């Protein structure tokens, strides 16, 4: 009650005008915080997003990972390999659907314009979208790890779990950049379909659904050109299932991919602004 009362006093125009009550930096931090919080709540409550994005990797892991808990072939424990694969699959899905589809929708509906007309710092909006992807990525990875430990017969050290979280965050940020570009290029009503058309084949070819060694050689060569492959290799490296190329090459590929996506997004955005 006390707080409420104070707030009312502060907002009466003749007291509020002379001096800003919050310093610039504190206010900016607060904007980033609230933007992020509400982005997360919005995604969480949007069932068609949150259920699909979390449930698909879990369902697939139960079907193909947990049921193969005993399967070991050519030194690969399926439940362990697929933990890495579906973790990447989940992380990428959350980023592409949360940002690609979400932002495309907000842009088409005119909501982005309302935000741009407000004093909101544009970076706060991008940061919140990015953090939304990171949060859902971590939720998915946590759920998959729990399943693997309890039902999949997988054992993980604390360091392995932490490294999985680390790669998950990197993957979210990296594919967030692709989400931004898709949101700028793709019409909102076609966005889910187009995202699936890109996301599912890339996931398959990059060995997120089955050990990449089982795929035909020419497909494995295609995979090397895909960002999904490089993220998967970084994740599988934690379990010792990576191929022979060096970790540095995967980090660089992923970083390069992210830079290209952000650069092209920036160009497309500026072009759209000039033609607007």
């Amino acid at each position, binding site marked *: 009650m006390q707080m409420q009362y104070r*707030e009312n006093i502060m907002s009466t*125009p003749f007291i509020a005008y002379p001096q800003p009550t919050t310093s610039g930096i504190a206010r900016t931090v607060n904007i980033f915080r609230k933007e992020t919080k*509400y982005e997360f*709540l919005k995604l969480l*409550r*949007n069932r068609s997003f949150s259920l699909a994005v979390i449930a698909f990797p879990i369902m697939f892991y139960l079907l193909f990972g947990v049921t193969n808990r005993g399967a070991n072939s050519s030194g690969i424990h399926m439940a362990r390999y697929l933990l890495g694969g579906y973790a990447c699959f989940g992380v990428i899905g959350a980023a592409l659907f949360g940002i690609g589809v979400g932002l495309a929708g907000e842009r088409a*509906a005119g*909501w982005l314009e*309302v935000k741009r007309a407000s004093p909101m710092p544009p970076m706060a909006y991008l940061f919140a979208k990015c953090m939304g992807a990171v949060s859902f990525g971590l939720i998915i990875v946590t759920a998959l790890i729990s399943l693997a430990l309890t039902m999949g017969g997988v054992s993980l050290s604390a360091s392995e779990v932490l490294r999985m979280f680390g790669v998950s965050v990197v993957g979210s940020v990296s594919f967030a950049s692709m989400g931004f570009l898709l949101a700028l290029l793709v019409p909102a009503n076609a966005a889910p379909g187009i995202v699936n058309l890109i996301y599912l084949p890339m996931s398959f070819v990059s060995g997120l659904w089955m050990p990449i060694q089982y795929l035909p050689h020419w497909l494995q060569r295609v995979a090397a050109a895909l960002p999904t492959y490089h993220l998967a290799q970084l994740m599988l490296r934690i379990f010792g299932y990576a191929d022979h190329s060096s970790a540095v090459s995967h980090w660089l590929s992923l970083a390069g991919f992210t830079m290209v996506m952000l650069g092209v997004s920036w160009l497309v955005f500026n072009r759209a602004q000039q033609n*607007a």
Partner: protein
Amino acid sequence: MPATAVMRETEFERYASAMQPQQAIAALSGVTKRYGDTLALDGMNLALRPGEVVALLGPNGAGKSTAVRLLLGLIAPTSGTARVFGGDPQNPETRLRVGAMLQVARIPETLRVREHLDLFRSYYANPLSVAEIVRIAQLEGIEDKMFSKLSGGQKQRVLFGLALCGDPDLVFLDEPTVGMDIEARRGLWQQIRTLANRGKTVLLTTHYLEEADALAHRIVVINKGKIVSEGTPAEIKSVSAGRKIRCRTRLTVEFLSGLPGVTSVEQSGDDVVVMTPRAEEVVREMLLRDATLSGLEIASPALEDAFLALTTSR
């Protein structure tokens, strides 16, 4: 209310600095906006003076929204300048003093009204309190509803509330009552009047003359990117409207056209139709000149017809 008086005083002082040199709080000067081959605005000059409510009136595609988007810094003019508070409308400092209600198909539906307000309030150093916004935008009882659960009118009121979060000095309302039923529309009119009474400068776009008439101090009629008429609501109505006199008479079209105040004369079957804003004088004269005059009808065209005449005739 001495408090209000004090507030007005300081507000005018602040405006005084912003008003140099052109006495306008926001202005489009010689603005042309082209989209490819389409000319959305054609040499538009528009100035908003502090404390006035201006209605930008015109049919769909007239360039109303383009004018608003230019003043919000969402788009840049092809030529000419847009200034708000003496600066670039894109400046973050400018945006702190501006509120905007735009035409939005959908806003994030899985957030509650209170959450939307909380987020938008955080953008401003000195936001209005939630209680105040709820009161002005009439959001009582729906604060905790998800946006998706609101009726069309309630959604518009939330967008209106979001425009007010920063207690802005200048408010843009782009077709604020579009798609609302008559009752909801009148409710929002009342809220816009509340804004005006608080000394805010308001630019509202509409394609209803009735709405412009009910709210604005000044109406600017635009069509095809150009201003076709400008004035107080009374002036606009007198220029555009006039009344329609229909009768059977021996008086010639030439003679009727020469009567003072007659804007047009048309033969319609056996009848003649005379348009004039000064119907009483004209009818008196006609009755005097033609004792056989019969079948006299005098009608006020609907405001919408008048407006249509105004925007199509030029």
